[in-house]
């Protein structure tokens, strides 16, 4: 077995040194009725070549954005990833290292994460960010719990246009700890600010709004902020597609108190839904309530700039049950990849990319409008996703288009019964004008 260096001679020598006769002697103190007498029932081991063959067969029988034209989004977005991102993140000094608890031998990871934290703050226009959480959904849940700790209020109000899986995760995390309420939606698919105004009161810790929302619509964060802060509640914004921030005014500039998001679109492949990257940022005033690891800048004994993990008194390894969260391992390498991606895209690139995506979405809209039998329930501006209403069953439509190697979008019935005749179609820069034409041709 090529991963195990021990020869029979090594084993004999070492057993001799510890005074054991055989390897099973090492376990003789385990009560015999607890020891497994028979081998584990697992498949026979495969050689490297056989393994790759087997995995290639599994991969081969799975569709992907290279073999199908895909218009799926809904919280997971397939963008082009520059080659340099893989090249850097596969360096084993990054890949095979542990959490940087020993700063003197981990300055590489620490500085990279410090840069990541800065990039997140700049992108979201917030004061301070952590070193990552698991994904956008669990980051949103932790933000709600954080708001509960800060305000000491028992309720959280979620927009019904917040990603359904984010709402589900928030409910799971908050069960038994905080009460969850949902705002209504306007006929136009936006968070109903009137219902928001009615529901947000002195018992509400926070309001969570996604922007652009699950239907791709750009929310009115300015108006929302006024209502939310008037009730003394914290304003939490969730950004499921952070590429939108190349073009859209960031949540921080609207006065958000906590901003969370999904960093997967920033240089990470869809990977069947994971790993993701939980973006998490807040204001200076709340830093001590923020969960997760944080890298800080300091100096070494000789006065040289150095980086280390800091404010550990919030974390589980110090505070245990009094910690702000139980999180330990987070998404270090994914954050590193996003830092590399954002450094490559930079100030101009992210803007240009989001303009391209907006352009493609507008092209799709224009072409869809010409197709009989399709209508648009929502008319507010969108960035990269649109909801389309149809006479046929969206599920049957999606199924039919698979034969043309097109995945047309996500039928909304599973999440919004009132939209059971609707499809959510998403666009990234990987959807060329030819792809869009192919979709529209197939829809006619």
């Amino acid at each position, binding site marked *: 077995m090529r991963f195990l260096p021990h020869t029979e001679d090594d084993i004999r020598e070492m057993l001799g040194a510890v005074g054991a006769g055989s390897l099973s002697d090492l376990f003789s103190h385990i009560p015999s009725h607890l020891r497994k007498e028979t081998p584990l029932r697992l498949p026979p081991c495969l050689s490297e070549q056989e393994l790759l063959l087997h995995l290639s067969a599994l991969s081969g029988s799975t569709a992907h*954005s290279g073999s199908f034209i895909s218009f799926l989004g809904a919280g997971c977005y397939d963008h082009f990833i520059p080659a340099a991102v893989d090249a850097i993140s596969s360096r084993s000094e990054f890949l*095979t*290292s542990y959490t940087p608890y020993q700063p003197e031998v981990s300055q590489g990871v620490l500085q990279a994460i410090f840069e990541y934290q800065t990039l997140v703050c700049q992108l979201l226009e917030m004061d301070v960010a952590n070193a990552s959480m698991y994904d956008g959904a669990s980051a949103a849940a932790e933000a709600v719990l954080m708001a509960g700790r800060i305000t000491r209020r028992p309720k959280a109000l979620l927009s019904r246009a917040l990603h359904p899986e984010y709402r589900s995760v928030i409910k799971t995390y908050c069960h038994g700890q905080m009460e969850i309420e949902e705002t209504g939606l306007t006929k136009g698919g936006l968070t109903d600010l009137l219902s928001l105004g009615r529901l947000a009161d002195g018992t509400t810790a926070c309001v969570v709004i996604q922007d652009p929302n699950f239907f791709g619509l*750009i929310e009115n964060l300015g108006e929302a902020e006024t209502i939310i802060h008037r009730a003394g509640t914290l304003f939490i914004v969730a950004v499921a597609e952070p590429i939108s921030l190349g073009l859209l005014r960031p949540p921080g500039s609207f006065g958000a108190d906590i901003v969370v998001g999904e960093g997967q679109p920033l240089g990470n492949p869809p*990977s*069947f839904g994971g790993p993701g990257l939980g973006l998490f940022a807040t204001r200076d005033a709340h830093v001590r309530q923020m969960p997760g690891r944080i890298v800080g800048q300091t100096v070494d004994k000789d006065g040289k700039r150095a980086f280390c993990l800091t404010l550990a008194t919030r974390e589980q390894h110090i505070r245990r049950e009094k910690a702000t969260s139980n999180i330990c391992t987070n998404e270090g390498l*994914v954050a590193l990849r996003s830092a590399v991606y954002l450094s490559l895209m930079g100030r101009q690139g992210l803007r240009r990319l989001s303009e391209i995506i907006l352009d493609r979405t507008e092209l799709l809209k224009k072409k869809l409008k010409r197709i009989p039998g399709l209508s648009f329930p929502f008319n507010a501006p969108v960035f990269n996703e649109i909801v389309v209403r149809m006479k046929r069953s969206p599920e049957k439509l999606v199924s039919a288009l698979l034969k043309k190697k097109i995945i047309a979008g996500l039928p909304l019935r599973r999440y919004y019964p009132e939209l059971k005749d609707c499809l959510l179609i998403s666009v990234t*820069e990987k959807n060329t004008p030819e792809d869009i034409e192919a979709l529209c041709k197939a829809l006619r």
Partner: protein
Amino acid sequence: MDEPLIFERSRAGRKGYSLPEEKLRTKPQDVIPEGLLRQDIKGFPEASEPDVVRHFTRLSQWNYGVDTGFYPLGSCTMKYNPKINEEAARLKGFALSHPFQPEELSQGVIRLMFELSQFLAEIGGLDAVSLQPAAGAQGEFTGMKVIRAYHEKKGNPRSAVLIPDTAHGTNPASSHLCGYQVIQVKTTEKGVLAPDAVSQAMTDDVAGLMLTNPNTLGLFETNIKEVAEVVHSKGGLVYCDGANMNALMGIARPGDMGVDVLQFNLHKTFSTPHGGGGPGSGPVAVKKHLRRFLPVPLVVKKGTKYALDYKLPDSIGKVKAFYGNFGVMVRAYAYILSMGAAGLKRASECAVLNARYLRERLIPYFDLPYDSPCLHECVFSDNKQKEKGVTTLDMAKRLMDYGFHPPTIYFPLVVQGALMIEPTETESKETLDEFIEAMIAIAKEAQENPDIIHSAPHKTKVSRVDEVKAARELILRWTPKAQDHKIVK
């Protein structure tokens, strides 16, 4: 030889991106109100691709990974990360598939998840598995949520959980997140849980016991079956933190010891890389009667088809969007298939042999607080060296000068000045001997030349980092003005 921050390398007008040059038809201000548009991303870097690549490459050179050298962090299981796993995760069907694509197009990936679930159930001796938790701590949270749901369904969630004093900090933190009070149970002078200590604490108001086996002292909880019976007799459930499963694969199974819920750490036992702090994966395995509470969707097989089953009315819901860290699952799946049952057992045997060997060779030089036979890790203290004013922290820093990453320090809390060493099975005898020599040299230095240890490390990129200053004067990001954005206490 320093590397500035990427923002300090930035120069206005430099480009590191490549995008289609096509003329766009849409002007943003024509479709989006001006007030919702962004003017600029202030402070974002502008660098060429060579700048960026050189920047991060230089940073990587000041970082130590398992591929660089011995990384004996206790309870972290820093074993070799097979390179074939990286190639596997990059296969297009795995990397570029979307979680919401129709199931008929995703049979390969769903099958992988189904089979991995089965492997883990078999290795742990339990019945049903959720792959959804993104890390060990989230696995603990999920498992404790399942336990709470079980009690809620019976009409009383109960209010407390028993946790031994040797537990990893995530255990009480996860319990607290589920709304449980933590009652600490002391381990004996032999370093394990005693049935009567658990008996005294176990009441009708205790939802269960969270333990780790082997525990964080590297010792097998020899009374686990009796302890489990005590907990079950009062209607409680037993949660096992599976972080230390590397000691037991093919040797013993928590499910056979009375454990009801177990989480695995794929990034420990199953060789997936730690990545500088993740991504991990913390699947949870449960006994049959708890399957109904697991997060949705469950991965099932219906005839010859693999599917995602959302029909679980008693489910605790979801802990993460989509299905879990699939990219990490691919690597663990590949590892298990590479090793097979005999390989996994041999891995555990060699992991324990390595730890036992280290322990034996270091006993003459370092204080060993618990003398029971250790499994995959051993814990020493700095009692012998403290007499000369040398602490565990000092020795950890001095080890860096010898080219090693230090072991885990100051954990578990039951040992003052703990030094927790877990070699793993992928280290050769020669590496262990080099490490032993370094430790012996440091023990000698502690007697004869303590100053060189106090002032360590000397040979690293930076000298000892002022962590106190970092917490007192918080600089948590770069800003353009004098590159300081200080939050002073």
